[in-house]
């Protein structure tokens, strides 16, 4: 049987030439660092000093240092950063951005008009503005003495809250919900828009309640999107660095997440070996999370 060429315009060799630059960049700046970080994590590499020129192999001591359970939960150590990150991801991604994004998409489903345009634009702008600019805006927003939030509380006769001193982790969780909800909102909004209108007409005819519609029509059809949102938002939130611009991980490391901890170890103290070990642990957790979601996603669909 004669095999039909896949395309008249694009021969296989031309196609590979088209792919080459992208593959080169991805190989050099994504795959190579992944392999190298693993190697560095078993050495005592530093930026300066004798270990910079020829680092020596130190086995797993960088890892055992991280998991020294007698003191790892102390403020400023790895356990503390990991605990903060888990709370941060759970609060701002899984219980925050994804449900809120779905709620907004549902609230404006099959609606058009100015109100929708305003809400979607505001959320999207919060998502795409430069991190440094929104960080200053949030430093002002939650400020104890002058912040808009406390001014609103005062209007209601409630006492002031010193967010960045008393609840720094909660503050960056709320910030991150504000920052990233737009992605889930846009994703669910597109998914809901793809549901054929005839489904709604049928639901109208049989007089289905809102809950029935959600359970029997919406949820099964957007389940795959839900997992995609959970995967991507979880990974992004795990790795996000913007909270550093607001709290710097403080006060006293109480809002220090793993990326901030990595940055501090690797680029404040220039302990590259230890920083690499943290990165490896972090990526391992990310890969486990991603595989878990992917398995769940495939099983439900299949």
């Amino acid at each position, binding site marked *: 049987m004669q095999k039909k060429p896949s395309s008249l315009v694009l021969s296989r060799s*031309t196609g590979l030439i088209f792919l080459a630059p992208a593959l080169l960049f991805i190989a050099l700046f994504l795959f190579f660092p992944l392999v*190298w970080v693993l190697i560095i994590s078993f050495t005592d590499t530093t930026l300066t000093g004798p270990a910079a020129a020829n680092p020596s192999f130190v086995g797993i001591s960088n890892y055992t240092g991280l998991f020294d359970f007698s003191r790892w939960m102390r403020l400023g150590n790895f356990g503390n950063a990991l605990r903060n990150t888990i709370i941060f991801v759970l609060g701002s991604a899984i219980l925050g951005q994804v449900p809120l994004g779905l709620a907004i998409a549902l609230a404006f489903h099959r609606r058009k008009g100015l109100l929708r345009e305003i809400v979607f634009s505001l959320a999207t702008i919060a998502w795409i503005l*430069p991190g440094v600019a929104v960080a200053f805006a949030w430093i002002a927003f939650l400020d104890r003495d002058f912040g808009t939030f406390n001014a609103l509380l005062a209007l209601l006769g409630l006492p002031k809250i010193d967010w960045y001193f008393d609840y720094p982790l909660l503050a960056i969780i709320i910030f991150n919900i504000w920052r990233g909800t737009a992605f889930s909102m846009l994703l669910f909004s597109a998914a809901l828009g793809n549901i054929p209108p005839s489904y709604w007409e049928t639901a109208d005819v049989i007089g289905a309640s809102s809950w029935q519609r959600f359970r029997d029509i919406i949820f099964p059809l957007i389940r795959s999107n839900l997992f995609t949102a959970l995967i991507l938002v979880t990974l*992004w939130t795990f790795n996000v660095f913007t909270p550093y611009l607001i709290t710097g991980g403080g006060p006293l490391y109480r809002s220090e997440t793993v990326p901030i901890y990595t940055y501090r170890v690797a680029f404040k103290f220039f302990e590259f070996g230890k*920083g690499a070990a943290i*990165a490896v642990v972090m990526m391992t957790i990310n890969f486990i999370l991603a595989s878990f979601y992917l398995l769940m996603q495939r099983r439900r669909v299949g």
Partner: protein
Amino acid sequence: MRGLRKYAFKFFWGVFVLFIMGFFLLPLLWLVTAPFDAKATLRVAIPSKFTFANFQAIFRNTFAVRALFLNSIVIAGGTMLGVTLFATLAAYALARLNIRGRDILAYLLVLFSSVVQGTAAMVPIFLLLFHLKLIDTYPGVIFVLIGGLLPTGIFLMRDFVAGIPKSYEESALVSGARPWQVLRDVLLPVLRPGMMVLAVWSFVQAWGDFLISLIVMRSPAKMPAPIAIYSFYTEGGTPVLTLVSAYSLIYALPVVFLYLFVNWRYGFRFFGGIKGGGR
């Protein structure tokens, strides 16, 4: 009973929408009021002494102007060109070649880049650039940004190319056009909207980047805006709010304009593509 429920639903809907609008709008107000206030604090208030002096002060600061109008534009512009060109080529090839499992592959690559890009790869990327002698150079920052953004860029563009029927190119070829003519006269016009979105997206990503420049750039003359802003601090380490807010506003405005442009021209929304590899 039904009527009552309908009103209750309307009421809660209204409360929810009002809450959401407040939540997304209120934190941004300070960026709009403080820059015009001669005595800006962290309070949001209609400026008692309305002024443009904060902006004038910034434009007199050559370091800050250079960071914004040269360094940030070079970095974001270079990244934009690289991502748009390479992602379009790759996405087109992926859509037209028969490679088995390419959909899953493209999706896994996006996940992979989400894990590796950012803080996890900081150490090896720093050492890589160090050995390539690219520390403290524009290409150093630009290349890292391109590498990190390409998987998602290809993913976005692939969806767009998949919507263009092959018959476009085939009929042009049958009628005797040369391949490069097909590329220029047939493909480029239909790919342009997708490339525009890709360009805006990658520009905005690179424009907002803080971490990679922080690690790679060393000399003040090459610092982009998000790092230069930290020069508006007093000796005691507190930000000079008049300057910080004004600089933040100038730095943020291009992103707002680009958003408004894309939203007006194409509608800012996701198309069906982001479903994931699950089906």
